[in-house]
């Protein structure tokens, strides 16, 4: 068929463009259509373009500016330290022995019974000593949340969904304590994000600060459409919180948000009554 070589050239052109500068939606569709016409998939040009980039860089002796290097290392610290904090579950405690059932065996003589009781008592004492020596597991996020709600001075506010698809089915609340500088966000039905593409970021508006410069409350991911509890990680001290906002940002978050996507707000802060 005479169109075959033209289609093949076009596919190569698109593969090259994909490797060099990416494809737009129409070009992606065209590529999919062309791929369907060929039995074999064509290898990508990404490796070739990467090799050219390497050749260029090895000629340049380029070095990362020192301030930027420090920022990247700080961000790496934050990134790696955030990994183990996800989803802390309480490990199960050892199961206590079941309540002894009533002795239905024939009566034994007094001495035998006394020895049995003494042995059982010492075993019980040994068990209690062992059990109490086990360190308590760290409280789960929901236990920490309950503790904070029960702490005087804690306030909470219901999330108000804004006009953003990420919050179409979202509900939940934010809990914060100015004295303790601690808080949690609770989400239900919030859109799960792909951390390679975008992440959520919390902003805390403080009565003592300019509204143009809210405090970064931390970057986080929504990993489930069910209930998700996220601790607040305020980067600066908050004197008196008055509003919380969640934005959608690039992976790793931003220093200052353009607020282009703002799915949730919480501003009617009320005392938890603790």
């Amino acid at each position: 068929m005479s169109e075959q070589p033209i289609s093949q050239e076009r596919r190569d052109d698109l593969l090259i463009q994909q490797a060099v500068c990416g494809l737009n939606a129409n070009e992606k569709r065209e590529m999919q259509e062309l791929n369907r016409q060929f039995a074999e998939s064509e290898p990508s040009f990404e490796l070739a373009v990467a090799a050219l980039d390497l050749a260029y860089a090895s000629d340049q002796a380029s070095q990362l500016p020192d301030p930027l290097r420090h920022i990247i290392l700080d961000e790496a610290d934050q990134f790696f330290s955030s990994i183990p904090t996800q989803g802390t579950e309480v490990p199960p405690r050892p199961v206590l022995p079941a309540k002894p059932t009533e002795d239905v065996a024939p009566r034994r003589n007094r001495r035998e019974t006394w020895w049995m009781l003494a042995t059982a008592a010492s075993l019980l004492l040994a068990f209690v000593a062992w059990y109490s020596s086990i360190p308590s597991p760290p409280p789960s996020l929901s236990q920490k949340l309950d503790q904070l709600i029960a702490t005087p001075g804690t306030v909470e506010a219901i999330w108000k969904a804004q006009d953003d698809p990420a919050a179409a089915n979202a509900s939940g609340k934010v809990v914060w304590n100015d004295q303790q500088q601690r808080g949690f966000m609770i989400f239900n039905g919030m859109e799960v994000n792909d951390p390679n593409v975008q992440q959520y970021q919390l902003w805390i508006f403080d009565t003592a600060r300019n509204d143009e410069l809210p405090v970064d409350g931390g970057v986080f991911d929504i990993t489930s459409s069910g209930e998700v509890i996220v601790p607040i990680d305020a980067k600066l001290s908050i004197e008196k919180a008055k509003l919380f906002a969640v934005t959608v940002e690039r992976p790793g978050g931003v220093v200052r948000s353009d607020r282009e996507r703002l799915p949730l707000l919480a501003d009617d802060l009320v005392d938890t009554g603790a």
Partner: protein
Amino acid sequence: MSFEQKAQDSLLLQIANGQKSAVAECVDRYGGLVWSLAQRLTPTRSDAEDAVQEVFISLWKSASRFDPGKASEPTFVAMVARRRLIDFQRRHKKFSVERDVPQQVDREPEAARPSPSDALATCEEAAQAAQLLRELPEDQSQAIRMSVYDGLSHSQIAESMGLPLGTVKTHIRRGLGKLRDRLSTITESGGAR
């Protein structure tokens, strides 16, 4: 170098295995490469700084996906970096037109850090690419440089070189096709390092 040795030497695999001490070395080894790419592919210095941060976050996330059998580590880093930079450009709807960053990149006064070019110069794929650019006919080589290094569209290259658009596309297709074939031979023979 054996596959096992390459895997053992890989900073990304060390990072994926939780060795945080490899992070700084990785930033020093590949920071220059990523910075060089970001400066070329983003319009302003501020964008380049933001983009470099995104690239490294992406590298930490994809470290475990590095396969020494498919490409060398510098090549993998370059691929991840360009992908992320393309995403960055598209999100910010800014393509390489005018830059406020000088083409002569920053030279840091401190000499303690290892030169990234030393690490990259030993990369077989980079050597093959440089060699091929020297071997190709001038028009082909020039068209590839303008496309890959300067980020110009095929139409801009055609206009700049005074060639028909179709000819420019053919030059780039043939040149990159040769390089792709050459690199696949290296990868198949396990020579990427």
